[in-house]
C-alpha cells in the first residue's frame, strides 16, 4: 500500500468531508432538530446544482455567486413547502406515514421533472479555477507539493462549505431566531410564552435548511458533473452523517461528515469507486443498528 496514495486519499476525504458537512447541515436542522423526515432534501441539492448550471451556461456567472443569489428563492420555496407540510400533516397529527410519503413524492417528482427538462446527460459548470490545482492557481512555486497539488475544484467548495457552516453556527448561537430554533424542539410552550410563534420559527428553520441544501448544490456541481439521479446517492450520506453526528448537533455533523468523507475516499481509492454508494448506506445501517444516538448524541 503506497503511503502517497493513502495520504492523497486521506486529503481528498477531508476536502470531501468539509463539503459533506454543508450538504448535511440542512438535514441536521430539519430532521435532527425539527423532527421532520425530509427525505426530499437531496432534491433541493440537485435543484441548486441545476440552477447554478443554467445561470453559468447562460450568463457565465460563477456557480458560487449563483448559489448565493439564489438563496432567497430557495428560502421562499422551503417556507412554502413547510407550510403545506404543516397544514396537511403536522397539524392533523397524522404525520408519520403520510408525511414520509409526501417527501418521497417530492423527491421523486423533482428527479423525474429534471429528467424531462434536462435529460440524463451529465451537466457541468465552467469557472476559471475548476481545472487547476492550488499551486498553479496561486502561481506560486513556494508551496510544499502536498498543498500545491490540492485540486481547486475540491478545495474551493470545501472552503466555502466550512464558511457557510460557520455562519450557520453563529446564527444559531448568537441570534434570537437561531436560539429559538434550538429551543423549539425542546419546549415549544416556553417559546410561545416569550411571544414567538413555534410554527413561524419552524418554518424559518425549514426554509433555512432548504436554502443551505441549494447552496451546497452549487458547490456540488463544481466538484463533479451532475445528472438527475445523483440526488439519490445523497440520501444515504446526509442521513448517515446526521445520525452518526448525533441528530441535531451541529459540531457532530462536522465530525460525522469528515469521518464519512475519509472512509468513502479510502474505499474508493483502494477498492474501486463502484463500492462508494454502499459505504454511506452501510455506515447508516450499522449506526442505526448499534448506536442510534450517534457519536456525540444529545
Amino acid at each position, binding site marked *: 500500500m503506497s503511503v502517497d496514495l493513502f495520504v492523497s486519499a486521506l486529503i481528498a476525504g477531508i476536502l470531501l468531508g468539509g463539503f459533506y458537512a454543508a450538504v448535511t447541515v440542512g438535514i441536521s436542522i430539519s430532521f435532527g432538530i425539527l423532527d421532520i423526515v425530509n427525505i426530499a432534501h437531496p432534491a433541493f441539492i440537485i435543484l441548486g446544482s441545476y440552477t447554478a448550471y443554467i445561470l453559468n451556461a447562460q450568463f457565465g456567472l460563477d456557480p458560487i455567486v449563483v448559489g448565493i443569489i439564489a438563496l432567497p428563492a430557495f428560502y421562499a420555496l422551503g417556507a412554502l413547502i413547510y407550510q403545506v407540510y404543516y397544514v396537511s400533516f403536522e397539524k392533523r397529527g397524522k404525520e408519520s406515514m403520510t408525511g414520509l*410519503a409526501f417527501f418521497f413524492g417530492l423527491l421523486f417528482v423533482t428527479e423525474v421533472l429534471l429528467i424531462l427538462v434536462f435529460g440524463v446527460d451529465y451537466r457541468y459548470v465552467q469557472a476559471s479555477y475548476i481545472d487547476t490545482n492550488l499551486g498553479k492557481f496561486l502561481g506560486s512555486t513556494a508551496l510544499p507539493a502536498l498543498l500545491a497539488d490540492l485540486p481547486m475544484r475540491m478545495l474551493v467548495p470545501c472552503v466555502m462549505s466550512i464558511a457557510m457552516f460557520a455562519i450557520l453556527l453563529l446564527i444559531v448561537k448568537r441570534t434570537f431566531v437561531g436560539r429559538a430554533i434550538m429551543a423549539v424542539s425542546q419546549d415549544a410552550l416556553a417559546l410561545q410564552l416569550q411571544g414567538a410563534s413555534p410554527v413561524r420559527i419552524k418554518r424559518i428553520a425549514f426554509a433555512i435548511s432548504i436554502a443551505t441544501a441549494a447552496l451546497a448544490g452549487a458547490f456540488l456541481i463544481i466538484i463533479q458533473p451532475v445528472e438527475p439521479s445523483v440526488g439519490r446517492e445523497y440520501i444515504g450520506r446526509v442521513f448517515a452523517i446526521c445520525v452518526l453526528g448525533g441528530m441535531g448537533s451541529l459540531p457532530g455533523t462536522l465530525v460525522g461528515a469528515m469521518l464519512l468523507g475519509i472512509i468513502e475516499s479510502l474505499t474508493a481509492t483502494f477498492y474501486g469507486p*463502484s463500492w462508494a454508494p454502499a459505504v454511506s*448506506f452501510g455506515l447508516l445501517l450499522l449506526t442505526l443498528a448499534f448506536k442510534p444516538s450517534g457519536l456525540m448524541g444529545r
Partner: protein
Amino acid sequence: MKRGMTSWMFALIACAAGALLFFAARSAGNDYVFFAGYTILQYIVLATAWNILGGYTGYVNFGSAAFFAVGAYTTVFFHKIFPLPIPLLVIAAAVASGLVGLGMGYLTLRLRGAFFAIATLALAVVLQTLIVNWSFVGGSRGAYVIRPATVYPFDSYIQYLFLIMLVLVIVALTTARAIERSRLGYGFATIRDDELAAEASGVPTLKLKLIATALSGAFMGMAGAPFPYYIGFLHPSGAFGLEYTVNAIAMPMIGGTATWIGPLVGAVLLGTLQQVAIVTISSAVNLLLVGLLLVGFVILAPNGLVGVVRNLLRKRPGAQP
C-alpha cells in the same frame, strides 16, 4: 374472528374470478394482453405486500425494489446452477426475501418508524451495490435468462407466467384479508395507532413487526421471481428500478391503505393508466404522473380512493354513521 366470508370461501371465489379472467384473456387472441396483464398482476402483489407492512402496521418501506430484486436474482442464481420449475423458484424467492426482511427488521425495528423508512432506502442501495459487484449473477453486465418456447398445456410461455402471477395474486389477497380479520390484524392496527399503548396492552410489538416485515418482503420476492423469465435479460438497474419502489407506495396510498381492497384498486387503476401512458407518452412522463398523483392524494385524500368512497357512502341519507 369477524363475521363474513371465511378465507377459504374467499380464496375459492378468487380462484373462480381468476379462471374467468384467464380464459377471457385467451379469447382476445393476442399475447399482448398477457404481457400487459402480467405487469398489472405483478403490481397487485407488490402493492398488497407493501400494504401489509405500510398500511397495517404503519412502517413505511422505501426499498420495495430491493425485495423485488432479491426475488428476481434468486431465480437468476438458480438458473445458472440448475434451472428449477418456476413454482419452486417462487418459494425460494419467498424464503430469500423473507429472510432479508427479517434481518433488516431485526436491525432497525426497535427504532422509530422514520429510521426504519430511511434504513429501507439504505438497504436498497447496499443490495444493488452488492449485486453489481457479484459477477456470478451477471453483475452490471446483466444476465440472460432464456425461457423455454412453450410449456404444456399452454399455447405460449407468457400465458404460463400470467397464470403463475394470477395464483400469487390470489394467495396475496387471501392472506392480506385473512390477516385483517385475525388477531394478528388487531395487533398490527394497534402498532399503527399507538405503539406504546399497544405494548402496555400486552401486544408483542417487536415480534409482530418482524412478522409483518418478513411477510411483506417474502411476497415482494415472490412477485420478482418470475420476472427474469418475463423479461429475458436482467440487469441491476432494471431489477432495482425506481418504478417498483414508487408504485409499491403509490398504489396502496392512492387506493387506500386500510384494507386489502385499496392496493388492488390502486394497482389496477394505476397499472392500467401506466400501460396506456407508456404506449402513448414516454415512460418518464408516466412516472411523473404517478409521483404527482401520490403527492396529491397524500395531501388531499390520505385515506385513498377507498376512503373517499366510504365517506360518500356514510353521508348518504339513512346511512349508519
